[in-house]
């Protein structure tokens, strides 16, 4: 007898104000299967999943569960049908304990007073934790857990709500390698329970590791469904972007000049310990390390955001005293934050005003008045130079795609004419095509003799674009590797603290 898929979505279409974002897309998943959902940003993955989880209603199309047609009009409907969506932004409440989070919204009560049954819920939570191999305490405050552990809470919530289909959106985006491994074990456990997992990720390596089949979307259309054993990475990429990427990491040989930035024995609390390194003009230095190794902290100490406890920073051989971003910018240092939404952009602002913010003084005319005409001229120049897809100066930043937002932020910093650029996770959460454009921008800057530091958790990226690699481990510089000696293994050895410089 033929096995029926657990879930079938048939010919789903959806438009937003006249723009078709999904066109006759079908997707099917079997119980005990992990299905990858792949596509560039804007391909329609999240829309499709939001329809499945009841956040959006489709214009046409049908959804079947166990072969029966179902109607999903709300998140509640979806939950009743056993569909859970684990979003990229976790919805765990940090001020509640683990068990309170797990039972949030469906607390178990006892007696006629409807008193909540704490003992029962604690015990049940403990069981659930154990069944998925988690070791943290049910009474711990969720806020004290690591991001990976918080994610486990979300998964346990899904399991405890008797979900049969779990959607995971970029679940590993902020996990360490170890936590990622744990997550994969949990996914395996879910599979063995007969649950279906729909796995959205940009990281192809992971998809090959955990998924059995892949559904690829592009521009709101279904491009193909295939078993992962039958394709390789390059084929997947070309399915996603519709063209062959000759080389994901364009590399040009450096012509490093004099040292522009040097950092000596920088300390900040116990997060940054005796960090020393230098950047030369015309080179890209990659900074690798596990999450929490102190890389972003190092950047923010250089920037003056965090007040250093000791150590010196030299720009062009001169010792500088940087107390704030303002001072940093004056010294030609700019920082592209890893958190685009929180630190990179004012999302409800026009693209153009976002770009000119650090450099407003340039446009001041008579009576302190900002001359908007000049702002627009500069905006146009940079939008063209960086091929930013935008309708114009006044387009609201949040309406741009992730890649274009990132380019807006880079443009904003370039307008200040910096000589040292620190990029923190510059390609996080943006699609393959846009990633390459960012790399090309980095190379262009390198050619123009800028000194560039790229902090990244994406090992391929670090290996692909760096001339030198500085690896951090627990707040210290564990080692430095030249491009010609660089390999994933070499970086890992330093990153986990097996090798050390000394």
């Amino acid at each position: 007898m033929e096995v029926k898929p657990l879930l079938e979505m048939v010919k789903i279409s959806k438009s937003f104000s006249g723009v078709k974002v999904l066109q006759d897309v079908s997707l099917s998943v079997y119980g005990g299967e992990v299905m990858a959902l792949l596509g560039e940003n804007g391909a329609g993955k999240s829309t499709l999943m939001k329809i499945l989880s009841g956040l959006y209603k489709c214009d046409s199309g049908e959804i079947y569960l166990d072969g029966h047609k179902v109607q999903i009009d709300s998140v509640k409907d979806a939950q009743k049908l056993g569909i859970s969506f684990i979003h990229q932004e976790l919805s765990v409440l940090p001020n509640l304990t683990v068990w309170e989070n797990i039972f949030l919204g469906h607390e178990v009560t006892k007696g006629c007073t409807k008193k909540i049954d704490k003992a029962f819920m604690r015990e049940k939570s403990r069981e659930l934790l154990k069944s998925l191999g988690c070791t943290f305490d049910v009474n711990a405050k969720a806020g004290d857990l690591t991001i990976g552990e918080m994610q486990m809470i979300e998964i346990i919530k899904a399991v405890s709500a008797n979900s049969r289909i779990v959607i995971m959106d970029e679940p590993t985006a902020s996990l360490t390698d170890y936590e990622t491994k744990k997550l994969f074990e949990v996914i395996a456990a879910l599979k063995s329970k007969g649950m279906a997992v729909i796995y959205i990720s940009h990281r192809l390596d992971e998809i090959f590791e955990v998924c059995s089949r892949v559904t690829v979307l592009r521009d709101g259309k279904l491009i193909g469904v295939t078993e992962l054993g039958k394709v390789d990475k390059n084929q997947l990429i070309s399915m996603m972007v519709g063209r062959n990427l000759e080389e994901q990491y364009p590399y040009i040989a450096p012509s490093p000049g004099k040292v522009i930035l040097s950092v000596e024995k920088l300390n900040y609390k116990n997060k940054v310990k005796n960090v020393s390194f230098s950047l030369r003009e015309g080179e890209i230095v990659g900074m690798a390390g596990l999450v929490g190794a102190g890389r972003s902290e190092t950047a923010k100490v250089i920037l003056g955001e965090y007040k250093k406890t000791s150590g010196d920073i030299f720009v062009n051989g001169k010792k500088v005293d940087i107390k704030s971003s303002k001072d940093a910018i004056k010294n030609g240092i700019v920082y592209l934050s890893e958190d685009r939404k929180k630190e990179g952009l004012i999302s409800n602002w026009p693209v153009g005003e976002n770009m000119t913010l650090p450099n407003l003084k340039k446009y001041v005319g008579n009576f302190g008045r900002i001359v908007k005409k000049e702002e627009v001229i500069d905006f146009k120049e940079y939008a063209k130079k960086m091929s930013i897809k935008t309708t114009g100066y006044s387009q609201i930043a949040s309406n741009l795609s992730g890649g274009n937002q990132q380019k807006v932020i880079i443009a904003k910093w370039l307008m200040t004419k910096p000589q040292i650029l620190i990029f923190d996770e510059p390609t996080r959460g943006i699609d393959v095509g846009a990633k390459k454009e960012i790399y090309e921008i980095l190379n262009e800057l390198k050619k123009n003799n800028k000194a560039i530091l790229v902090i990244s958790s994406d090992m391929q990226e670090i290996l692909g674009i760096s001339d030198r690699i500085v690896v951090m481990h627990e707040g210290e510089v564990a080692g430095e590797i030249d491009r010609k000696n660089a390999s994933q293994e070499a970086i890992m050895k330093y990153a986990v603290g097996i090798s050390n410089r000394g």
Partner: protein
Amino acid sequence: MNSFKSFIVKYKSLVVLIILVVILSIAMPRFLTISNLLNVLTQISINAIIAIGMCIVILSGSGGIDLSVGSVVAITGAIAASLYKSGINLPVCILCALGVGALIGFANGLLTAKQKIQPFIATLCTQIIFRGITYVYTDGKPISGLDDSFTAIGNNRVLGIPIPVIITLIIFLITLYILNETVLGRHIYANGGNEDCTRLSGVSTDRLKILVYIISGLTAATSGIIVTARIGSASPNAGLGYETDAIAAVVLGGTRMSGGEGTMLGTMIGAVILGVIDNGLNLMNVNPFYQSIVKGVIILLAVFLDKKNKE
């Protein structure tokens, strides 16, 4: 046509105001007389000026709010009146009152920006403290017997327009210019939109926060002088509850409480709506106890409509 439409969408409160004025003019013929309108505008000016400062503080984000404005009104009024009575000439008295207002604003700014105390708490404390200082300073008694040259600020007219209305208009135009045309204005909106991003973009956000509270202190002091001049005496109880009216005007004007979105014109319209409601209810001889209820309900309705519209 399109720009007219977007103007209406942006200033929905204007529609509310027009409706109110039409209703009142029909119900109360006395409402639409020049003398009554000028009277309304004069009364409004006190709240409007405070609301201008409040609007800037709220726009600047980071939870910005200034609850100390009522106490600033009382203490600056008392200082201006007492100095004047001791024989110091009027411009100096005014400058001293403004200076004290700015200083209290500076203190509020330091507490919120440097000590990282939530603005609500910080300004609540300064509100209480400066009310107390006013009682100590005045010994709890009003300072009265101010002569005509002082009271002229509140009661005289230039070219037929009451001086408080002229002052309001000038302050409004200056702040309008600052908010829309200058770097300071851009930074205020930026910080209201996203503080972290603004700071990382090289803006001294601490200095910005201090500055907006100084502006609010200055506007409250201006109102303090006008209140004193209108009554002809400085009461230690002056300005009680003024912060509520000012916040109501800002909210009615469509400014987002978390900052970053809102306009000075909206705030002005909000202040005028509040004044018109007050005046209308007075003309209709509504019991003051009920006036407060009616006012609260109307504000709630206006905000509710605004919210519906945005959704």
